[in-house]
């Protein structure tokens, strides 16, 4: 539950908090939607990264929701359940492993990112896809922290 003494109308606690800055909320929503509508990266890869970021940061709200494009593309709960073990599980493709390695390093130790880490992603996604992936990671990392620090962690509608 949020510690903010007031919020704005909105579908979820996250939207209600961000709704105190309506122009910013609208522009952020438009930015975020592009990751799922333009599909610069496979939505399953994106969703796995979003969920891994949530695991690392300990955000139950982000873990509880599912992005509709990823589910529509075939992401299963069985695969999500294996996410903790992505290094050894046979459920993940080479691209998914490469993206998850970058996601973890992005959150925990960006200066520890190696040429090989980025190279493994760019070899599969190209420069444009790699840029899209790290922009999505920036959003996931930043706005998962936003949820946690403001206490707007209740599950929101899947986007």
């Amino acid at each position, binding site marked *: 539950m949020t510690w903010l003494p007031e919020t704005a109308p909105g579908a979820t606690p996250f939207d209600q908090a961000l709704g*105190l*800055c309506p122009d910013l909320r609208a522009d952020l929503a438009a930015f975020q939607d592009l990751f799922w509508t333009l599909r610069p990266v496979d939505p399953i890869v994106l969703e796995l990264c979003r969920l891994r970021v949530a695991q690392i940061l300990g955000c139950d709200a982000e873990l509880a929701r599912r992005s509709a494009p990823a589910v529509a593309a075939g992401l299963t709960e069985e695969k999500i359940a294996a996410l903790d073990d992505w290094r050894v599980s046979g459920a993940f493709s080479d691209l998914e492993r490469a993206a998850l390695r970058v996601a973890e390093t992005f959150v925990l130790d960006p200066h520890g990112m190696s*040429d090989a880490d*980025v190279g493994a992603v760019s070899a599969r996604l190209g420069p444009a896809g790699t840029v899209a992936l790290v*922009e999505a990671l*920036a959003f996931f990392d930043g706005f998962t922290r*936003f949820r946690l620090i403001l206490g707007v962690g209740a599950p929101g509608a899947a986007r």
Partner: protein
Amino acid sequence: MSTTPRLPSPPAPVGGASDAINRSVLAYQPELLRAFVRVYGTLWSHGVVDQATKEVARLRNARTTDCRYCRNVRFAGARAAGLSEGLAAQIAEGFEESELSEHHKAVIRYADVFLTDPTRLGDAQRAEMLRCFTPSQIVELTAGLALFMGFSKIAVVLGQEPEQMPTTVVPTPTRPA
């Protein structure tokens, strides 16, 4: 840390973005870049928090995330609002004993929790933030921190930091029409 770009330069600039962003690898995704430029312009030029306070948050992130580009850039609006280079230099270790205002010290403490473990914001710090800022201002500052941190990390992981860079004042981001 790598100051060697990990991706080749993009083929074409994107209209409406600053020169620095245009030259960056973000231009590989023109639609995402345009949307980000709009978000950033809204944050900086249509917000409810004064620019000096947002600059304090941005610079605290820049030092903590250790992005050389972000550390050395200063936004003109914050400079005009009174955040001198002398004050900016105090957004560092020992800031508690600095000449920074109590509001700005509260922002630094808040940024430090955001950047390390955002689950650990305690009651005393919540109360401090509510004494210093309105709920709208707190939301804007928090969204700003999310963007500052995220895009600093992009510069770091993609090797977009310059080898050397002097302190450089640049125009405050504005929202494209």
